[in-house]
């Protein structure tokens, strides 16, 4: 189980002429748990701090106070809100990049399998720039599947996909990961991932 305990986090920004930084509180004494094998949805409007939560969980930023427990030795995969794919690589290369401990041929084979799983076989050798928004989204999902791990964090993962594809892709992600933290503002998306608990982003500052 991953536990976020009494997390406080503020962004600091300097305004022209000001001597002290302006603090924008995103998390104020916020606590939550992500249990093993559960799908938890965090819902809220844009700008409510959902992406900051992703960064905290991934260890990309440190909280001002409070602690995150239960992540030691755990491998966390992620689908970022933005695709964050390398534009100079092909779809296949973007996926192969995160595969560790394999030789080149094995990495390529695995990348092709995952592209087939996300219904993107035809795009394997295409540069990222040539893919549509929905295709790029699926490449970033395939990359997260390739990295694997104990937990997956999904930040609006199905953005830009049509209804049928959303269902199939969500099903495949669930096949790979049992512990899911879903960031979304869409209740239907939470249902697709079988989220049994929902936290509102409004709790970030008031809990």
């Amino acid at each position, binding site marked *: 189980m991953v536990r976020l305990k009494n997390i406080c986090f503020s962004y600091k920004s300097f305004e022209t002429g000001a001597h002290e930084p302006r603090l924008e509180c995103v998390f104020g004494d916020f606590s939550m748990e992500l249990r093993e094998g559960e799908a938890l949805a965090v819902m809220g409007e844009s700008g409510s701090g959902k992406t900051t939560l992703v*960064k905290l969980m*991934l*260890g*990309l930023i440190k909280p001002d106070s409070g602690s995150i427990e239960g992540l030691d030795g755990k491998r*966390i995969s*992620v689908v*970022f809100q*933005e695709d*964050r794919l*390398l534009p*100079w*690589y092909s779809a296949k290369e973007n996926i192969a*990049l*995160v595969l*560790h401990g394999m030789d080149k041929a094995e990495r390529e084979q695995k990348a092709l399998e995952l592209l087939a799983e996300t219904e993107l076989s035809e795009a394997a050798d295409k540069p990222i720039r040539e893919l549509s928004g929905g295709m790029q989204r699926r490449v970033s999902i395939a*990359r997260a599947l390739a*990295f694997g791990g104990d937990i997956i964090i999904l930040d609006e993962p199905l953005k830009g996909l049509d209804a049928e594809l959303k269902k199939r892709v969500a099903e495949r992600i669930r096949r790979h990961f049992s512990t899911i933290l879903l960031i979304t503002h869409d209740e239907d998306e939470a249902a697709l991932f079988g989220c049994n608990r929902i936290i509102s982003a409004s709790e970030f500052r008031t809990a």
Partner: protein
Amino acid sequence: MKKAAGKIGIIIIVAAFWLAVWQLAAALVGSELLLPTPFSVLKTLFKLIKTVKFWQSLLHTLLRVLAGFALGIIAGTLLGTITASSKLLSAFLSPLRSIIKATPVTSFIVLLLLYFSPVTTPIAVCFLMVAPIAWANVSKGITETDPQLLEMTKAFKLGRAKTLKSVYIPSILPHFLTAATTGFGFAWKSCVAAEVIAMSRLSIGKALYESKLYLETPQLFAWTAAIIIISMLLEAVMVRLIGRLKKW
């Protein structure tokens, strides 16, 4: 194919136009000493390329340019990397770059002749011309690397070597290539200028100076034409090499 033929056609027409302007101007001036005709320059150039001195001078100048350019690119890349990764070092070292950039090349040549020989001064001058360009561009490439991609590499635990190869190098490459092409032009021109002042043995610069000294204006023009042609050829070779590097 048609497009290429059209492009060549345009180049020929433009070149013919300017040669005609030159020819007309030379006819109006009416003195080979002040402005030789294109034909006379071409004849002198053909005479020149048959001499051993031409090829020796060309080779020595070219080696100096390449040495200064390579050293400048290496030092500039290192300094660009250091200053982009540390604000403190950037604050300490950046004034140096501004001073080098603002100093006239002739001041450097005269000054460096105090410390270097006439043979090595052009190399040092090339180095000083190229290094700040590579420094500024590499530093810009590093600081402008997409922070979201860098976060991605951390999230997927790519490690330093993979992050360098897959994110930093492709992000820096366009800036590096701009530095290389601009820097090469500067290296070539400043090297010849340094050779003229330093009177470097077996050099294009010295040959240029001697042509002027003996009032051999067609030869002065022929050497200049040779410099322009070689510079253009080398730039084309560099663009090709860079194209290959991009594919890699």
